[in-house]
């Protein structure tokens, strides 16, 4: 049981990180569909760095930087040149798939040391809970810290409220004097950083090698998770664990011969997302919006 719970947590972490980053970007009004591409860059960057510097912790930094690099490309186009965000985001993923394939070609067939587990003094000795909560790797702790940080940031900090204002009505925010483009740049790059670390987690912990397109669609699930969480940070943890839990449950079901078709279980997270979407649009009609109103709209001002 313990091993299964640990597997669920491990498989959820890349989703959680990427979704947390995307949430901030979307809250500022930027819909970045390039999450999959940013995750791939994070994965290849992390693996390259660890092979070069031989320390898995540099992999986290390299993953974050690669993600930010991809996010900057996206920002230049969508924020400065005001291109369509959906098309640019899709383009970014296609571009990153090719680029990482090229950059990763010399890394094929190499393997790296995994990120070590950090045991928290005494707490890790508690049976079951100890090994699940207090015997994780650095990125697992970091991902929870990021969720806590963005919850407080969005709700209580001035900068967080400004960011939401930019995402809700960029014209008004602009006329009050907030630098809309700058704020969106920061938010998108934060999203890139989180997606990069999420991608880096795959070679650093889950499967320590590089193979092309190894994120295999997790970036898209992260995008769905943001909607599922209806842009509320703590719900991302719940959502990621549900997604992860169902993924593992359908594998366990098969191994144990449960009479449920595995395809049905694989469908569940997406059904949940559609239900969440329906509920949100239901709430929208009551004029109590959770969706950032300027989401996906380019800002044509000059700042």
């Amino acid at each position, binding site marked *: 049981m313990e*091993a*299964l719970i640990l*597997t669920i947590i491990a*498989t959820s972490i*890349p989703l959680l990180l990427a979704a947390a980053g995307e949430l901030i970007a979307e809250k500022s009004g930027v819909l970045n569909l390039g999450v999959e591409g940013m995750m791939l860059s994070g994965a290849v960057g992390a693996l390259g760095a660890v092979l070069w510097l031989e320390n898995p912790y540099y992999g986290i930094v390299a993953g974050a930087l690669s993600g930010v690099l991809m996010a900057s490309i996206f920002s230049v186009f969508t924020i400065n040149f005001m291109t369509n965000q959906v098309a640019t985001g899709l383009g970014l993923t296609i571009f990153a798939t090719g680029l990482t*394939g090229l950059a*990763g*070609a010399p890394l*094929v*067939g*190499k*393997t790296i040391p*995994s990120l070590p587990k950090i045991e928290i003094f005494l707490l890790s000795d508690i049976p079951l809970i100890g090994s699940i909560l207090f015997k994780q790797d650095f990125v697992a702790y970091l991902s929870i810290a990021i969720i806590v940080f963005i919850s407080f940031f969005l709700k209580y900090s001035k900068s967080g409220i400004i960011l939401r204002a930019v995402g809700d009505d960029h014209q008004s925010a602009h006329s009050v004097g907030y630098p809309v483009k700058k704020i969106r740049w920061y938010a998108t790059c934060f999203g890139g950083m989180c997606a990069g670390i999420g991608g880096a987690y*795959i070679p650093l912990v*889950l*499967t*320590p*090698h*590089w*193979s*092309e*397109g*190894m*994120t*295999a*669609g*997790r970036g898209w699930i992260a995008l769905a998770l943001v909607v599922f969480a209806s842009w509320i940070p703590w719900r991302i943890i719940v959502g990621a664990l549900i997604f992860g839990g169902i*993924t*593992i449950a359908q*594998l*366990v079901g*098969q*191994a*144990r*011969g449960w009479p449920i*078709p*595995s*395809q049905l279980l*694989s469908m569940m997270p997406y059904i949940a997302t559609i239900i969440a979407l329906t509920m949100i649009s239901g709430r929208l009609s009551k004029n109590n919006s959770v969706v950032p109103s300027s989401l996906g709209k380019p800002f044509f001002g000059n700042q």
Partner: protein
Amino acid sequence: MIKFYMRIFSLITLSISVLFFVISSAFAGSPTKVGFVYLTTPGDHGWTYAHELGKQMVEKRFGKDVKVSVVENVPEGPDATRVIRELAKQGNEIIFTTSFGYMEPTLKVAKEFPNVKFEHITGYKRSKNVATGNIRFYEGRYIQGVVAGLMTKTNKIGYIGAYPIAEVIMGINAFAQGLKSVNKDASISVIWANTWYDPVKEADAAKVHIAEGADVLAQHTDSPAMLQIAEKNGAMGFGQSTDMSAFAPKAQLFASINNWGPYYIKKIEELRSGKWNTGDGPNHWPGNVWGGLKSDMLVISKFQNMPANVAQKAQKALDGLKSGKINIFAGPLIDNTGKEIIPAGKALDDGALWGMNYYLQGVNGKVPG
């Protein structure tokens, strides 16, 4: 007047190109142009990588006598038709299309270019200029079963399959036959990944198998993720398509390696000597050529991480399959619900293998769908 000049001009260009052609063919001895279509890139370190190694053997063997063009990352469907047609237009004389889903596109283009030879890998439809080739992957699985049966302590074997199609199911059943020949108490549980390639999902499936008590793992998916998980958790497993010992030096017992090179070389040689043909294999199984261990299309890597007596028995199974002494699907065969598939004294033929939609004894659960 302009018309006249244009005529002169085109005449000159024509004669120059003819001259070039004559000279180049006289000096270069006209290399045979060979085309390859890959589903992914050699970076998958599995299926396509094995084809890439085959292509490299072709280049090494023929040197300047062949000119090879490769198109990577070609999705199965309309895109494939375009790519194959383009390769044919460029003057390739023989084109290898290396994935099952290229079957219809290959046939379609073959009709348009009757003078070009096509080799479709793992398909079952042929025409005048389309031949097919496949490997008896399941033979390697039998040896895997033998080794797994001798190595397991928990008597639980974890198997990760891609899709429940005949090709994968016959592999599972061959594994079960090998397992049964040495260990009657062990059983196989199967997890379907519903994908050929998703390293994280393959890793998750491996973790679940181990958590459920399996200590020997086998896979019919493409990435080395399963072996890496086995390595981390002290379990054992088998490499797929290529030697994966670099990923799991302590966990890989051996790998079944797809060896396409000799097949490619043989077919290109046949083409160059004018003897290329589509053979006359029966229509119900993929491949005029369906070669295995005997014809070296399937190669078994070094037996490692196992005691000498296990390696000996594995070698015996390998020799038995090569000499034909062992027939994996010889009767009596009973499926895992107790139904007799074939009585003693008879054996399944190739056609029956491609119709497999049941598990033999030793496999848990039932085939989905």
